[in-house]
């Protein structure tokens, strides 16, 4: 039996974390290929619908990353995002999502090393949790 490979949906903000992923790539820092990156304008753009949609479509984990607080391209977008994420993480874990499936980080576009490090940690964490079983929408079997 092959080892479980998690599928992780990663939301990266255009200005910092996506740049960090780019830098990590250009610099050839290694991290496992378990992520599907989605570029968003700002971490504040992430809505609960997107996160739940990723999970119900079969993602084993969701990782959201943006600029460091105070460094947002839109001045304060990630401060609003942070409040939202506090409530989102609490609510989803309250209703039975395992802590660790939902990951957050702040990574600037100069931190290619940090990006590769955090990517490895996130993937290891979610791999340890095993395949997601909750909140996944199974399609009805058609004969």
């Amino acid at each position, binding site marked *: 039996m092959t080892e479980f490979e998690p599928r992780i949906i990663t939301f990266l903000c255009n200005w910092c974390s996506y740049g960090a992923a780019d830098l990590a790539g250009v610099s050839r820092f290694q991290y496992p290929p378990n992520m599907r990156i989605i570029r968003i304008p700002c971490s504040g753009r992430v809505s609960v619908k997107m996160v739940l949609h990723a999970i119900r479509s079969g993602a084993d984990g969701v990782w959201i990353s943006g600029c460091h*607080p105070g460094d947002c391209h839109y001045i304060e977008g990630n401060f609003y995002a942070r409040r939202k994420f506090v409530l989102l993480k609490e609510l989803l874990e309250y209703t039975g999502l395992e802590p660790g499936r939902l990951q957050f980080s702040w990574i600037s576009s100069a931190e290619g090393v940090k990006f590769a490090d955090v990517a490895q940690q996130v993937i290891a964490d979610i791999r340890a949790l095993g395949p997601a079983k909750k909140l996944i929408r199974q399609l009805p079997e058609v004969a």
Partner: protein
Amino acid sequence: MKEMENRIRQMAKDLLAREKVDQVVGFCQGSLAAVTRPFLARHPEEADQLVFNCNCRMNLATFVPDLKGRTGIVAKGCDSRNLVIQMTENRVKRENLYIIGVPCAGMADKNKLLATAGGRDLIRVIDRGEQIEVETTQGTTHTLSRQDLLQDNCVTCIRHNPVIYDALAGPEVPEPDLQDRFADVAAVQKMDPGEKQAYFQHLLKDCIRCYACRDACPLCYCPTCFVDESSPQWVGKSLNPVDVTTYHLVRAFHDAGRCTDCGACEAACPMNIRVRSFTRKTIMDCVNHFGEEAGMNPGQRPVLDRFQINDPNDFFR
């Protein structure tokens, strides 16, 4: 209670007769004994149909933004907090409202009321303040203590008196000093993820997705609700447990930092689902993490529309 009702009628009559408002939104007796329905009085003589008793579970703030002209509204403590939210979100203007504030002793739970009849129907519910008298179809009458019949959200209510009002329909009631207000949420939080999931699956097993909780809620006013969006379709239309859970999670999250725990959602639910289990958690988090209660201060924007530099940050890598 009867005096309060009379005063509400008198105020409404005055307002309409002197053309201070174009309409008064209040409650009138519904077709069942334990139910009231929303009522719009446009003429002074219609004001006589207004009632106020332990069955006024709805939140009338739902109806105000769609009305033209100046509106008088009967508002309990939780409803007035909701009106504050409606004002901060530019749904209504304060000058277009005349708020008839009702210091509220709490509403009777519809199921607890029905349970007193022992399987029979109720033909009359009389609110006598501390006591509530019910008459059943068998002709028996029971007198019950109001405290025993209260809705869950009224037991944990932090604001019985209106936050904003133009006139009060009765003397202010004392605000309780609540200990352990979030015991229900804490109990669920102690469970492990598997138990939590089983708990919520059981909680939602009867949900028929009628969206009564959404329609009863003054906060749910998006022109197109996310459940009706089709591209992308965020949530399926079926009774699949994942779709049902997704709906309730997103509904609760959309109300986060705005919910005033008026209990209109739960009172509206035809399947008696305790949908407040979700919103209670967001209320608790807003109190614990941001020190905020929704709708207590007319000058303040909603919690998620503001931030502090030192908001919780420890879960970020």
